[in-house]
């Protein structure tokens, strides 16, 4: 059943990573990504691994959850891995068989790129695991708010994200209900070719859209009744405050980046 799909991967906790200011977490994630991309060699990447490992151990997120986050990306990793393996022909040849040629350069690049992607996923997953969607939305709004000067709709985007998060579970439940109702009227959604199946979706999609529009209309009305008029002059219940630990985290991260730069310079392997 659709109900079983989990949306939003927040894993509640009270670890140091959880308690960091979400704006700082966003910044740190960006810095971490930069760190991964400037690393030229395996030693540089190793610094990234240490950083990740430290953050992960502090967060208290189960390893199983982290591994699960890589699963959907696995085909991409494998695919790019093969591309790297077969098409990069620098370095010493390892295997040569008909038109297939595998070299040390290819193997190295494959391992390097795969590790980088996995580290990237781990980093962003850690961010979403340790930050509730609402806090994250909030942080995005605040980080982007200076852009309001150039008419960038930071508040509107954040509001849309909040409402989306709020209504996803409701609409999933609704889809489930409509599907059951149409099945009870003999709708067949499991057999037939692609066209037949696509057609079978009509009795589900139309009621779903009609309902989503009705909900949107009612929600807009309720928001108006509660004096909503855009982001102007709005205050917030929760104020974000940076604590000393946020700056410590920032300093540590910067140190790691410096380490990567130094390694790039002096030990680029």
């Amino acid at each position, binding site marked *: 059943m659709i109900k079983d799909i989990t949306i939003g991967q927040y894993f509640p906790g009270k670890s140091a990573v959880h308690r960091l200011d979400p704006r700082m977490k966003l910044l740190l994630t960006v810095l971490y990504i930069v760190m991964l991309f400037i690393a030229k060699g395996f030693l540089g990447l190793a610094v990234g691994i240490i950083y990740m490992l430290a953050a992960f151990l502090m967060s208290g997120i189960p390893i199983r959850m982290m591994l699960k986050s890589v699963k959907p990306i696995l085909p991409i990793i494998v695919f790019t891995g093969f591309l790297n393996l077969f098409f990069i022909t620098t370095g010493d040849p390892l295997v040569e068989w008909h038109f297939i040629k595998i070299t040390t350069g290819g193997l190295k690049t494959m391992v390097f790129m795969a590790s980088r992607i996995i580290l990237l996923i781990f980093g962003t997953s850690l961010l979403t695991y340790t930050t509730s969607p609402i806090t994250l939305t909030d942080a995005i709004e605040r980080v982007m708010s200076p852009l309001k000067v150039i008419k960038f709709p930071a508040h509107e985007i954040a509001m849309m994200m909040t409402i989306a998060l709020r209504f996803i579970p409701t609409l999933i439940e609704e889809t489930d209900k409509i599907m059951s*109702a149409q099945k*009870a009227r*003999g709708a*067949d959604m499991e057999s037939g070719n692609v066209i037949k199946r696509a057609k079978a979706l009509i009795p589900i999609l139309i009621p779903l859209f009609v309902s989503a529009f009705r909900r949107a209309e009612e929600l807009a009305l309720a928001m108006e009744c509660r004096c909503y008029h855009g982001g102007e002059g709005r205050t917030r219940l929760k104020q974000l405050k940076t604590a000393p630990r946020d700056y410590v985290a920032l300093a540590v991260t910067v140190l790691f980046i410096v380490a990567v730069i130094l390694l790039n310079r002096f030990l680029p392997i």
Partner: protein
Amino acid sequence: MGIIRTEDLTYVYGEGTPFRKTAVDGVNLDIEAGEIVGIIGHTGSGKSTLIQHFNGLLKPTSGKVFIDGEELFADKSRLKEIRFKVGLVFQYPEYQLFEETVYKDIAFGPKNMGLTDGEADKRIKETARLVGLKPELLDKSPFELSGGQKRRVAIAGVMAMEPKVLILDEPTAGLDPRGRDRILGLIKEYHAEKGTTVLLVSHSMEDVAKTVSKILVMNDAKVFMYSDRSSVFAKADELTAMGLTVPQVTRVFDRLRAMGIEFDDEVFSIDYAKDLVLRLLAEKRR
């Protein structure tokens, strides 16, 4: 054997997760054909889960369901066939309307059954009449109708499949008094005319008391009782403790009894209450 029978029917949600919940727990039921049954229970008592088993939308975690003597899920190829014997009208059924016209929407079920256009046409017109939809409404878009009309279209869509059992989940929810009476009236008429089994799920005791002959009370995933109206309403205190309400007249007469007025009857309709008062007065004068 009745038209619907269950043997130790159990259904568990989210098995193996922290949200594991037994929604239906060891239910044994035997509902006779032609009966009109009210199913009551508080939210989360398992009544909605239970009825979804009757047409195979849910597969029991354990136990069996028999419809018209045939076991559901025993032979998967028969499932669709058996499902057509049980028509299920969900809560707020007007939210599943999707066709361009009322006619086409009512036709959805009959067409899925593989009926010929002629046979479907006959049934559509017949049910439209039964639920009180004027012929000129059939060519309109269902989205143009009033709330009450939409609901009648949705109910007609299931009735047109001519199921042996018609199940309605909260058919009067959110309607005004006139709309409520209208829906209950047409359910009664349908039952009288077709003689098929009807199950009416509701937490409005007034609706149930007005319409049904037998009542199934669900509480905490189990059958609390399955009996005729008077025996069920005789347990007013227990029903109230379960978060259900008994009809106002029932409460009035329970209180009168507690105050020392002597009578044996269980009161759940206004007419009955009126006759009872008149009878008691006559006895008193004698």
